[in-house]
């Protein structure tokens, strides 16, 4: 457990030293949400209708883009090799890295989402559901994204490939996440949606770390 906390602390410290890791996904999130009214229509009624979907898609893309970097610097400077030859379980290291990635991407996105909700005229009933659904859904996105990151970390053209691999896997989270917000905005109960998002999170927490560890071993060992 001490080791797990130390590993999370190290990654958060690294992110804090390089502010862009934290700021870039947030800026991207905001910009996508700004593009949308410009491209389609600034009319408040229309925007209120599509806001849940737009915010969720923007959050999903922001998570995906930052996922590419989860293992990249560790791979480049040899830290990943050291993790593989250490007696510490790789699954634990992987979980720590995913957790810290979530804190700097998904968690911050969830905190920032009310701002976007306001800009896109999301009905106030949907606000709590938006934050909750993002808090429950983005960890799954981080876990799945890390699988793609692990598989492509040794490749030169990682960036676009990872979206090809991972976006299809994001679909269930997107459907239930945006569904939560839509239901809340219409005044419907959301407990069922949240339970589904939670179930997805539990399932991916149980399986994804092993897939990520296997992917990293393949990327490093060749």
């Amino acid at each position, binding site marked *: 457990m001490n080791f797990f906390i130390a590993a999370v602390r*190290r990654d958060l410290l690294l992110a804090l030293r390089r502010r862009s890791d934290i700021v870039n996904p947030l800026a991207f999130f905001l910009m996508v949400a700004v593009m949308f009214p410009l491209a389609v229509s600034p009319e408040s009624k229309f925007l209120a209708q599509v806001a849940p979907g737009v915010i969720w898609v923007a959050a999903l893309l922001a998570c995906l883009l930052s996922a590419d970097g989860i293992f990249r610097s560790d791979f480049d400077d040899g830290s990943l090799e050291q993790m593989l*030859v250490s007696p510490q379980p790789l699954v634990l290291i992987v979980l720590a890295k995913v957790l810290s990635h979530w804190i700097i991407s998904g968690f911050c996105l969830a905190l920032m989402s009310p701002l976007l909700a306001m800009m896109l005229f999301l009905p106030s009933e949907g606000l709590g559901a938006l934050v909750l659904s993002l808090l429950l859904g983005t960890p799954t996105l981080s876990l799945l994204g890390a699988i793609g990151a692990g598989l492509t970390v040794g490749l030169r053209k990682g960036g676009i490939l990872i979206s090809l691999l991972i976006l299809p896997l994001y679909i269930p989270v997107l459907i239930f996440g945006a569904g939560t917000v839509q239901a809340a905005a219409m005044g419907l109960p959301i407990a069922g949606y949240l339970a589904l998002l939670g179930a997805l999170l539990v399932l991916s927490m149980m399986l994804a770390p092993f897939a990520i560890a296997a992917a990293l071993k393949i990327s490093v060992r*060749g």
Partner: protein
Amino acid sequence: MLEVKNLFCERDERVLFSHLSFGISAGEVVQIEGQNGSGKTTLLRILCGLNESYQGELFWQQKEIAEVRDDYFSQMLYVGHLAGVKSTLTAEENLAWMQQLDPALDKVSIAEALKNVGLYGFEDVPCYTLSAGQQRRVGLARLYLSTAPLWILDEPFTALDKKGVAEKEALLAQHVFNGGSVILTTHHDLNVPGHTVRRINLNEVARS
């Protein structure tokens, strides 16, 4: 301690080595020789489980390595081409993380290890302000901390000056004297005081 039996490895349809067998016991230094591209790095990576595209068997304390992985990893120290040093962290933070990763690193304090590699006073500077040689030394400070009996070192002396090399050689000698063993590759003429170095030439192995 470590035994290699009948190792075969090819890369890009070229045989790097075949029928390679050797063992290393406590108190031994083995230097892997060979031209560039003869597979020295590949061999070391196979030995520490970072390359799986080989045929043959590896034994650690008479047991197959795959079965005693955790035990093996906790008694083996690997320093590769890449130092595994994060440039945005300070030397001290880097070593603290390495200690977390490898519980066998605890012989002396981090401050003392950094002093030993001549980085006294550089503990709390981010590593990107250090020179290449200094960064390399941060990675090598691990050797002063390590209690692992087996060291696997890939070109440990690159980017070091003469004095640094001599110091590292003395460190190797002490490690071997205490019953440890070392497998390494280097372009230097290795001189470990008080010990003979066993050499394995990969070019000769490939031909056989």
